[in-house]
């Protein structure tokens, strides 16, 4: 066991960790927009929108992320987009996460007392305003612990974007392994970085839960 391998590649791993975080952040942010839209669709009064939303959730929770990533990659390559790798990576993560986030938000909105929306309706708010000002802010607060959990899951899932060539933690660990012929140390190094990021996020999650519980009192 040669731990100095990890020390020597510390710089590369840190850079790669940055890429992992960046890709994951982009994925979760875009995923949130998609998730909110799908959630609104599923709770709308138009039957076709409800069905469309339902199909979206079913498809993007049913198809494994790896398959989705490669599909988008080949899809974009086939139709001549220039940087299929990054687009496929973020797009795949976002589309997949969006399905899970929409379910989280939907649960949160269902947990919101109906009177909240009713008072807005009675005052004459338009549908859009009710969503923007009343329902979504409250749903967001309720779902923050679950959303942080989703971010942690997304971060781990991001390791799959290594297959489309993005230079994140897993890919860089693979590179280090093949350069130094020390796969054990290389992957332990990568694993340690993932653990570190996760510990940070878990602490953040605990903090958020505490603050939310306090406010509710």
């Amino acid at each position, binding site marked *: 066991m040669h731990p100095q391998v990890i020390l020597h590649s510390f710089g590369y791993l840190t850079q790669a960790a940055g890429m992992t975080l960046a890709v994951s952040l982009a994925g979760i942010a875009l995923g949130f927009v998609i998730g909110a839209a799908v959630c609104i669709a599923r709770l709308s009064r138009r039957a076709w929108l409800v069905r469309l939303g339902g199909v979206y959730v079913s498809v993007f929770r049913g198809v494994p992320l790896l398959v989705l990533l490669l599909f988008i990659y080949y899809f974009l390559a086939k139709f001549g987009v220039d940087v299929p790798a990054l687009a496929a990576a973020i797009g795949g993560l976002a589309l997949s996460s969006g399905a899970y986030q929409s379910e989280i938000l939907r649960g949160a909105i269902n947990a919101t*007392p109906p*009177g*909240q929306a*009713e*008072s*807005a*309706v*009675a*005052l*004459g*708010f*338009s*549908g859009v*305003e009710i969503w923007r*000002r*009343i329902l979504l*802010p*409250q749903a967001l*607060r309720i779902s923050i612990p679950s959303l942080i959990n989703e971010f942690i899951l997304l971060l781990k899932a991001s390791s799959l974007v290594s297959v489309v060539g993005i230079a994140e933690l897993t890919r860089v660990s693979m590179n280090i392994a093949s350069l130094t012929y020390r796969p054990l140390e290389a992957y332990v190094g990568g694993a340690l970085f993932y653990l570190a990021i996760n510990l940070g996020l878990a602490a953040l999650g605990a903090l958020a839960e505490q603050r939310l519980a306090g*406010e*509710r*009192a």
Partner: protein
Amino acid sequence: MIEIRGLDKSFGAHKVLRGVDLTVGRSEVVCLIGPSGSGKSTLLRCVNFLESYDAGEVRIAGKLIGYEDAPDGTRRPMGAWRLREMRREIGMVFQHFNLWPHMSALRNVAEPLRRVRGLSVSEADDRARAMLKRVGLSDKAAAYPSRLSGGQQQRVAIARALAMQPRLMLFDEPTSALDPELVGEVLEVMKSLASEGMTMLIVTHEMGFAAHVADRIAFIDDGRIVDEGRPRHVFHESAEPRVRQFLQTYHDRNSF
């Protein structure tokens, strides 16, 4: 101000309102009383079309709400925009206050002014502060609902509805969810509104309030208005057995 004629409403197979007729004149205070499940709340909610109705009509200041009469004589559901416009003129206070927990008291009152009436932030805040003063909560403007007592929350809710300067106000059991000690402060505000000439339709169990503040009382049972008239008439001179029975249990419970 409010004209209800021949109102029918069913939830599935269950008929909740059967041919209800009721009028509320300008500046009148009308209280709806009756046993649970009689349809009082449903009737109230039909007035601002939070519940749709199946037959009959509800007119606000002469204008039909919820539906439009098409030129060929049939009735169509009213457009969303029109409905919202009508709702702006109707204030509603709910049993469970329905304040928005992620906004301060001031913001709760100011938000509809900003979003629905289109006032600027400073105008909305000014008017909101005036309203909070009106209900006696100036010092709680920055407080969040979770920090306010039930009575305070309900007063903020009244301020929120009042800030819109509605032509009439609907109250759906405004004090039923409050601890007995807090009921008084809310009734005081409602009394002062009545004395200023606000048109009010109130569903309530507070017989004392109804007796002293209402201009008229309507007793609903099983989806029908069984008796109505001035408080003296309903409470003491009603010939309807159902009314007497209802008031008897009330008297029994309260005359220890």
